[in-house]
């Protein structure tokens, strides 16, 4: 099986995504869940870069721009997420996601 760089990248990002997904689903610590989400996000970013770099028209830096936006958004999201975690911690003296279910309708 001959693997071009694109496929390698895709396999890598898939692995990264799966790790993130498992971390998200399996962890009960909210911070680790957030980390998992970041991993999945970065897997997607990696795909953007890969498809741009090895895709048909790499000249306009569209992939890079997307990724830059995405990172910025992810940073904001992480900030909000961590703030929420702190709020949860203040409220219930731990960060266990299973216990943070008081907002259900």
């Amino acid at each position, binding site marked *: 099986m001959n693997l071009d760089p694109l496929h390698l990248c895709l396999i890598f990002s898939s692995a990264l995504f799966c790790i993130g*997904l498992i971390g998200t689903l399996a962890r009960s610590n909210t911070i680790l869940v957030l980390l998992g989400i970041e991993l999945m996000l970065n897997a997607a970013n990696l795909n953007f870069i890969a498809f741009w770099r090895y895709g048909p028209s790499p000249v306009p830096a569209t992939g890079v721009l997307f990724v830059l936006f995405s990172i910025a958004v992810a940073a904001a999201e992480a900030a909000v997420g961590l703030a929420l975690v702190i709020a949860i911690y203040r409220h219930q003296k731990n960060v266990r996601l299973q216990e943070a279910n*008081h907002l*259900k309708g």
Partner: protein
Amino acid sequence: MSLSVQLLWLIPALPLLAAGIGALTPRRGRGLAAGAAIGAMGIAFLLSCGALTTALAHPAAHAAHNFAWFDLGLGALRLGWLLDPLTAFMCVMVTFVGLLIFIFSVGYMHEDANFTRFFCFLSLFAAAMLGLLVANSLLLLFICWELVGLASYLLIGFWFHKPAAAAAAKKAFITTRIGDLGLLLGMLWLYDSTGSLLFYDGGAGVLEPNALGSLVAQTTVGGLAVSTAIGLLIFCGAIGKSGQFPLHVWLPDAMEGPTPVSALIHAATMVAAGVFLIARVYPLMAVDQLLAAPPLHALTVVATIGAITALMGALIGVAQSDIKRILAFSTVSQLGYMMLALGVGSWVAAIFHLLTHAFFKALLFLGAGSVIHAAHHEQDIRQLGGLRGPMRTTFATFAIGTMALTGVPFLFSGFWSKEGILHAAHEWDVSHLPFYAGLAAVVLTAFYMTRLVAETFYGSARSDSASHAHENPSVMTLPLVILAVCAIALGFLGTPVWPWLQARLLGQEEVHGHSLLEGGGLMILSIFLVALGLGVGWAIYGRKLRVSAAAPDPLETALPPVFATLRAKFGFDELYAATVGRLNNAIAVVADLLDRYVWDGAIRFLAVLGEFVGVVSRETDGDALNGGFNATSESLRDGGKAYSRAQTGEAHGYLRVIAIGFVLLVLAVMLGGGR
């Protein structure tokens, strides 16, 4: 001095002014109120004398002064004053008798707290009565007629704290009003038929030939001439006011008022207003005599009612024991005489008797008042007695009055005036029954007056109040003396030999009375009857004087059922209470029940109906319309509940669902071939 017709209004206006002053004077202003009333009456008397000279200068003229009261339609409603001998004589009589009674009242009402109000009401009465006399319009006459009724109401009920007085006042007003409605209808009919209510209006008045001719030419229900029907309706008013049968029931009760009131209003003047009214509209009453064969002459009815009243009043008077009630029934009887005279065609005889009666009946009432005042308001003749000694002036004047009333011959005025009436009744060609009734009443009058005098003045005092009686001050006795003089002197104005008064009233220079010889037989008969009445009365009551108040009346022991019937006044009050009173109540009950149950019931039924519709529509709304909406929203809410169960709050659960979804999505993409 003479008074022109334009200024005639002054005569009623002066007492009216005095009444206004009396109304506004506070209670302590006794002198002012009485002074104003007496002064106004005095001036009115002088003015009346002036009017009399004017009227006598042209006795045949009906001097009238008419004016518009207010605009009505294309014309105006007009009122006016009238000056003729009838008006003038009546005015002089009313002001003179009124003046004396006013003076008497100063003494009689001396102790009353409402002295000023009494004089206010008396002046109001005088004003209304004089207005009635000078009116040249049936409407103005009616207005004053009603005001006279008002004054009578106020004065009968003057001691309104006594329930009997309050009831008597109401009874008088209502009973006379029944008659007044007849007068009102007659007046409306007259107005409608002739377009005027003025008596004399230069040829256009209702008592002038044009109008009378047209009235007598038309006939109405039952073939009556319109003039007859109107005349009878007007006579209804006279029946009520003059206490004629069958509306006489109020007059005896009216004696609840102070005695000067009884003298002035219910003996001398107001009750005579009915007689005056018929005399005033005499041309209208008599015009149907021209018809060949009408079903009924108005005057026949007048004569019949008068005769019945004369006899009935005298009969009832026999068995009464209240001094004022005896005089009241005597008044009823004498008014019957006057009506009888009017009915048989001699209105001058009626007016002559009216004038003489006013003086001697006022005298008798004031004499009775003097007795009552002296005897501390004791009115029952059984409780009195022996007053001849202590009250000499009163006794003497009362005796003169009695003789004038009974018709003691030649010297006393009542003899001449009554003789004129009997003569006229004798000459009436329709029937002689009224004449016989009149003769019977002569005997009875002499009889009951003898009884009254014997019981009151002779014998010994039968109660404390009578034994302490003493003569009244001269402010009360002086009017008695003056009236007594008049009760004698007035008769000579109208003797058959020299009928001056009759001539002036008829507007002729000289009237030939029937000579003494011509009417001699009748005169002897009536003298005999008077003597009979006096003799029998004296035989029963004078020779064997009553010894105690409780002793039964000699007549009562002799004829118990007759006496009881007469004493009960033939039971008219009870009869009316049982018939008219009940009917009245029944109508009231029906009217009330109609309102309460039928009309209000109908409305309530509508309301219930409305409520029923409301209930029905509420139910319809609930089940049919609201039900559908409810069901829809119920299911919506159930669905929402079901979906909301998926929201657990478990973030991991959500993530799992997302993951599974993602996997499924990927599988779908792969199996679908990436399209």
